[in-house]
């Protein structure tokens, strides 16, 4: 179970990194609005679906944070990742193309470091959890016999 959580976190951070890269290209080359980007590149990130359409007239930062708290929490992101997501949402869409490219580059770097850390953690701990599972199972089997 714990091992699965670690793998899931890696998977989600990979998806988010992929989203950042795709969204950066969209902003640079097609100036697609935020709602369109979220719709087009939401693969693998479920909490995007909780964000209302940009035309709803809701406060964007509040909507993003609400979606992070309601959805991303259950998707396998760690507390530190959630802070990263919240910070990203505060600047997403709020500046001109140049500002957005810089914002995306910053969060690509931050997400890459988080991903590296998540992979190391998974490699280190998942073996341990797996071994613990195997030993626990074996011990239980011996006891039952």
């Amino acid at each position: 179970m714990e091992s699965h959580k670690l793998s899931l976190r890696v998977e989600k951070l990979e998806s988010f990194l992929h989203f950042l890269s795709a969204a950066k290209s969209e902003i640079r080359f097609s100036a697609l609005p935020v709602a369109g980007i979220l719709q087009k590149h939401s693969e693998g990130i479920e909490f995007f679906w909780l964000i209302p359409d940009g035309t709803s007239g809701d406060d964007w930062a509040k909507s993003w944070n609400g979606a992070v708290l309601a959805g991303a929490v259950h998707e396998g992101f760690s507390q530190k990742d959630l802070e990263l997501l919240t910070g990203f949402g505060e600047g997403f869409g709020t500046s001109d193309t140049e500002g957005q490219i810089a914002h995306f580059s910053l969060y690509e770097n931050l997400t890459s470091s988080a991903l590296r850390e998540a992979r190391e953690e998974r490699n280190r701990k998942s073996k341990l959890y797996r071994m613990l599972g195997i030993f626990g199972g074996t011990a239980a089997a011996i006891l039952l016999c």
Partner: protein
Amino acid sequence: MNQMKAARFDTAAAGICKKIRSSLLALSPEQKLQAQEIRLRAGRPVAVCFPHGTCFLRENGETVLDGIADGLLRASKSDIEETFQILCENSVYSHENEIRNGYLTLRGGYRAGICGTAVLQNGEITGIRDISSICLRIARELPGCADELLERLGDSVCGGLLIAGPPSSGKTTILRDIVRQLSSGIRGPAKKVVIVDERGEIAGCCHGIPQNDVGLCCDVLDGYPKAEGILMAVRSLSPQIVVCDEIGSETETRAVELSLNAGAAVIASIHAGNLSEFLRRDQATALMKSGAFQHIAMLRGCAEPGKISGIYRTGDLVAEICRGTSSDNCRLSGRVCGIA
């Protein structure tokens, strides 16, 4: 019909921050029908402009004429910022060019004028910061509002028409209805019309779809600068009529001349308070002398939007200008007569 018009006000108000939106939605249906603009200014009362004048809004949706009355709803700096983000659909970067030019085109064909501090780079405006006021213009589609003009001009509308009038006199609304009628074949065979919609006010394209009814045989060059758009239309879209709003610069006049020589008629609008102001404008003179406009239609003003005060033959006006300049500075001597 009236319900639809009131709904347009509600759609426009949806672009305003929540705090102010609720008060705007509380306006009476009659007021919603007549409202022309919603104006937010940082630290000052929210104003709604009607044909008879400007009123200020109270929190409960009441309007008063007195701007220093008690209990007026004031727009704070954060209200303006929130409204700006909503109007941009939280995507400032996708409206960069519009913002640079001081406006935003919104879903539904509305336009918001943005006022703030200019950000300059090498002497050119690259953006606007510290937004201090927003003027949200409520776009109206009035099918049939160009009937009178088209009836009076008949086929000669295809000889080129320049619609002149002060701000909020209904120039764009009339242009839109002319496009709709000509491109749908309501008056004679359908014409191939191209709109060069630099500010997105005529067709009001949003994500490539015209939000206003511009007829069946109409192509829209959305966001194109007028001069480039006119040339592009003539080169690649074989239009019979090219339509654009608020024309007047030297390059635009040259583009109009080129389109005329390429066989496409031009129907455009220009700002002018009245006929004498129109005749005093050098841009107007240049446009008339280009030969691209057979007629000039003058609109009355914001108190009577869409009403025509006169239709003039360009030749008569040019002759009047020539007479005026040879005698004194006053170009209009009262000898010009409307054709109808």
